């Protein structure tokens, strides 16, 4: 080789090395805007602002996925209720969070530990919490990682060192009993995070925090957040209305709008029956619960909303954080799943409804939803006492909080559906606020099989706008992990028994599988390190939905450990 050649080779090596160890500050907010085109990294909880859970990477593809094997593993401490988070990856470093908001930074190629962060939490409070101590993910921007805590704080960590940049208390969790389990969302210089809510008697705010200083910029109450909304709650019921926004939403940079899904009102079930407009524990439509809302990320001001289920009386909230930005025929659309089993399609500019289609087969809380107006057709409002037939879906939903995936290559939306119902007896309750807030359920219930067969799950491949189905795969039990589509024409589905499946994204043909030995209720991602593609998925069982499995299906769930977990990372055999 000539000296010139050696020089160029050296420069290329230096450039490559610089790319591989580029500074943490390189992950600035503008880099998040093009995350959907980035095969190297996984920069947001949903992969990008478009929520596709898709990586363009194609080194691992339908032709060679049979050669996928475990490259390395990592075991977190105190994996109480397993691992429920979706990792992030930037510049060859993988970050993920576990229970108690513990955060790990690992070399993406080798798994070598770079740093660990373990916040000191209010352990006495944690012991009193129901929806705890799991954490569902991180945000990345401004050279920082952001993580919420179940005791009501948002913490920023320096990406390089894991040192605390700020630690801001946002929620009085000692009084309200809840805090944060969902991932934050970074938008420009603001970090947005939604509190737990739903059956917890409060007003479930979403917060905007300065990403550099930790100062709270704004707070939007999902219950009675405006005068218009307050008028939709009878009496003083707005004070204990629930709501919340416990999963990270998405961002539309064209309109500078954050899209967020909100939780259900409290109590979950309502003894008013058909008279819910005038009587019962929360008379009225209960804005902005079970809604999608558009917020200005800079001010927290409400731009628009659509309430998917007015006066939700079934715990079928809109908190699923998945908002797919789909452009179709000149239209700019936003696709959002609702826990009740329906997929809503909106105009991205204003949340004006464009379509509603049904994913789940066993639905009887309504007879249908008008795809043009969104009106609930034949809604089933339960009265006090035992319902004459099971309610479908069950409390765990036709759709859970785990995200589906969309492949721009196939044009298909891949989404898990859950088929189950429940016997229910509605009970009159009152909110418990002292000395600290408690759940307000309002019913006794028991999960049962649906009318059309056994309780089960299925993965559908559909057109995201029309809902037209291309293929379907059935599972004995619903998979509870978020899934992944890739540019290699692959779809990865981590299932509940502990097996990761890789399918041909066009046809649904299974091409590879591997057992991790414990159920999955986290998120799976793709990233590159040192020029090589990796697939990473946390395993570890124990979400509140997975807690239902032992009674419905017995083993392996009866004896499956719920206080352990591991991160599994795969690559192609050398």
């Amino acid at each position, binding site marked *: 080789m000539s000296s010139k050649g050696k020089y160029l080779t050296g420069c290329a090596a230096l450039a490559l090395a610089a790319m591989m160890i580029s500074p943490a500050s390189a992950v600035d907010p503008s880099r998040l805007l093009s995350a959907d085109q980035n095969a190297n990294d996984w920069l947001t909880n949903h992969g990008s602002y478009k929520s596709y859970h898709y990586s363009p990477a194609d080194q691992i593809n339908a032709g060679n996925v049979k050669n996928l094997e475990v490259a390395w593993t990592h075991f977190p401490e105190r994996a*109480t*209720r397993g691992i429920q988070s979706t990792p992030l990856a930037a510049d060859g470093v993988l970050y993920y969070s576990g229970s108690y908001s513990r955060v790990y930074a690992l070399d993406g190629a080798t798994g070598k530990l770079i740093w660990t962060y373990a916040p000191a939490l209010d352990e*006495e409070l944690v*012991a*009193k*919490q*129901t929806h*705890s101590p799991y954490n569902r993910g991180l945000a990345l921007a401004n050279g920082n990682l952001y993580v919420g805590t179940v005791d009501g704080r948002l913490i920023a960590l320096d990406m390089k060192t894991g040192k605390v940049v700020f630690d801001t208390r946002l929620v009085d969790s000692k009084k309200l*009993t809840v805090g944060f389990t969902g991932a934050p969302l970074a938008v420009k210089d603001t970090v947005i995070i939604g509190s737990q809510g739903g*059956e917890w008697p409060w007003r479930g705010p979403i917060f905007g925090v300065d990403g550099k200083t930790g100062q709270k910029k704004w707070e939007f109450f999902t219950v009675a957040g405006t005068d218009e909304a307050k008028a939709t709650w009878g009496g003083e019921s707005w004070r204990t209305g629930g709501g919340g926004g416990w999963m990270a939403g998405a961002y539309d940079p064209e309109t500078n709008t954050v899209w967020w899904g909100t939780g259900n009102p409290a*109590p979950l079930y309502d003894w008013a029956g058909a008279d819910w407009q005038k009587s019962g524990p929360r008379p009225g439509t209960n804005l902005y619960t079970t809604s999608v809302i558009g917020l200005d990320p800079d001010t927290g001001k409400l731009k628009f909303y659509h309430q998917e289920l007015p006066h939700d009386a079934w715990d079928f909230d809109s908190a699923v954080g998945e908002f797919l930005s789909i452009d179709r025929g000149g239209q700019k659309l936003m696709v959002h799943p609702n826990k009740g089993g329906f997929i809503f399609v909106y105009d991205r500019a204003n949340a004006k409804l464009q379509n509603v289609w049904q994913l789940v087969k066993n639905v009887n809380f309504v007879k249908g939803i008008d795809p043009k107006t969104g009106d609930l057709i034949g809604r089933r409002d339960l009265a*006090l*006492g*035992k319902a004459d037939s099971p309610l479908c879906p069950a409390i765990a939903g036709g759709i859970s909080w785990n995200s589906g995936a969309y492949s721009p290559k196939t044009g298909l939306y891949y989404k898990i559906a859950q088929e189950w119902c429940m*016997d229910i*007896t509605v*009970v*009159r*309750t*009152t909110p*418990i606020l002292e*000395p*600290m807030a*408690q*759940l*307000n*359920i*309002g*019913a*006794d*219930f*028991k*999960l049962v099989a649906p009318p059309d067969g056994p309780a089960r799950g299925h993965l559908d491949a559909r057109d995201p706008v029309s809902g037209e189905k291309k293929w379907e795969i059935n599972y004995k039990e619903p998979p509870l992990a978020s899934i992944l589509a890739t540019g290699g024409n692959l779809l990865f589905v981590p299932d509940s028994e502990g097996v990761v499946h890789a399918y041909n994204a066009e046809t649904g043909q299974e091409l590879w599988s591997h057992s991790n030995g414990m159920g999955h209720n986290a998120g799976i991602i793709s990233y590159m390190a040192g020029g090589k593609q990796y697939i990473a998925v946390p395993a570890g069982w*124990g979400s*509140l939905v997975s*807690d*239902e499995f*032992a*009674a419905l299906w017995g083993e392996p769930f009866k004896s499956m450990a*719920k*206080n352990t977990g591991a991160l599994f990372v795969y690559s192609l055999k050398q």
Partner: protein
Amino acid sequence: MRISLPRSGAVFTTLTLALVLPTACALAQQSPGAATKAEARPAEASPNDIDGATLFASVCGFCHQNGGRAEGRGPKLAGTTRSDDFILDRIRNGKPGSMPAFGGAFSEGQIVAILAYIRTLEDDGN
């Protein structure tokens, strides 16, 4: 109507509470951990305290399904052979990773009312 099952549950719960409360308080005093909590938050009996069925449907039924009559997220409670002492301790202190501790959230009267409600549940084999 206050509760759905048992149909005379409110009255039965009150009566059962009268029987169980002295025993439960005595048991609580035998346990150092429980005694500390009991001292910090002495048993109080208010009209709300004694409605164990409503408390159960508000909070406990989220996991102990069909009002505690069936296994769900949490174990079935109807027909349990666990002692009063065990159940009271479990309600107060929870089980890490599985069940929250209600010792600082519910009064001793409420905790005993929940125990009393559990004792009314008939095991129908579900």
